[in-house]
């Protein structure tokens, strides 16, 4: 149990059955008035932020949120299935949550999972992944403009822009946060 005066940035609390992380916290006390704890917090399920004011003796339940390493296993048609490599326990993550991330997933890839009441509510990809290019038209010869790029499709179906010298079969490194090509790791 927390009291309002224990709250600070980063603490996770449960409010009306949903987990929140505190992103901003301010102690105020007007003149001779009572202490007011103003809190901005983000709903860990929806991502929306809310602002609330509390008194010093208001109490809060810590949210049952933890982090764990997970390994991606497979897509079962509805959910993405991850495994805890230590306990071999499987966790199903609904497709909506993986919408922007699914094209980076490769079998056995290690990700950071956020667990709330035994449910995975967020998955953080490794910042960098290495993938094989499965389709990309050859660069046009003589096109020497700097930073010239062409479209390429990866083994997972991910489509990104790559430099003209990258060929089908090459393995490249990609930044998962920006979706940008970083380097060629090996060539076939």
């Amino acid at each position, binding site marked *: 149990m927390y009291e309002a005066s224990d709250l600070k940035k980063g603490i996770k609390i449960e409010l009306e059955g949903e987990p929140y992380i505190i992103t901003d916290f301010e102690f105020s006390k007007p003149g001779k*008035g009572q202490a007011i704890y*103003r809190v901005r917090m983000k709903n860990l399920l929806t991502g929306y932020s809310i602002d609330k004011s509390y008194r010093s003796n208001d109490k809060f339940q810590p949210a049952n949120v933890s982090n764990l390493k997970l390994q991606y296993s497979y897509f079962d048609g509805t959910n993405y299935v991850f495994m805890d490599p230590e306990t071999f326990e499987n966790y199903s993550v609904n497709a909506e949550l993986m919408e922007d991330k699914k094209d980076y997933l490769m079998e056995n890839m290690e990700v950071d999972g956020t667990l709330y009441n035994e449910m995975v509510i967020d998955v953080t990809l490794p910042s960098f992944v290495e993938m094989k290019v499965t389709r990309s038209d050859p660069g046009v010869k003589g096109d020497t403009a700097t930073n010239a790029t062409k479209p390429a499709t990866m083994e997972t179906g991910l489509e990104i822009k790559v430099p003209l010298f990258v060929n089908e079969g090459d393995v490249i490194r990609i930044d998962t946060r920006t979706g940008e090509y970083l380097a060629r790791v090996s060539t076939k």
Partner: protein
Amino acid sequence: MTVNFQNLARRSEIIRAARSFFHLEGFLEVETPIITPEPLPEANIEAIRTESGFLITSPEVYMKPLLAQGAQKIFQITKCFRKNEHGSRHREEFTMLEWYRAHSDYTKLKEDTIKLVRFIAEVLNTQTIERGDKKIDLFSNWEDIQVNAAYQKFAGHPAPTDDFQFDEEMTRLIEPNLGWNKPTFLSDYPVKYCPMSAACPNVPNFCQRFELYIGGLELANGCTELADWEKQRQNIEQEQQRRAQNNMQPYPFPNTFLEAMKTFPPSAGTALGIDRLAMLFTNSPDIQSVLTF
């Protein structure tokens, strides 16, 4: 945490200027005890307990008895202590400038406050206070808005009667909007929020208390002191009851203070936060920037 010596230099100038100001105005500088066996009970302020007594939350408990013994104009710069107050504008231990005038009222104190802040600005060779990217002119006429009018203006209704709503809206809707064009006095509080202040003539539900805001920051609190001895005793008892309702530990009853106050003249006093003033004159959003440790 590194010390900002530029800010410390300015803080030092501010304190030196404040001292000069009061000496030039004919005030007597006093030093009163930091430890007291009988703090004055307040519903929202908790004193720090020591083995030998309580650390003062304000020098009021000793400065008012000095007026009762005949002091006319006194001031003090001292450390004060308020338990569990910690934030970007608060520290448990902070520096207070407090001054009192016998046979005077809060209108005179507002004049003192204006003159003091302008005097310090002149010593610092500035006309303005900068707060973020805003400039607040200290030398044009200051604003003065009544508490009720401020709620009407910024919250859309008169001052609420519920304590939590009063304080919550004060910190969220009112304070952040005060004192951005020029310094602003917020005046005439509902009586229940100023147990030691005198009522406004003709408006008995409000009392002669003001707070000063500059750039949304509360800087000073002053009032015409309640001189009626019986009312003081009643209000002290009432504050003790409010503390009990808030589950705060009781203090010994301030018999020594009340006994001394039997000869208290009609007076007025102001408390001004030196750390806050240093924040304003150094454009610091956080109090730590004007502290040594």
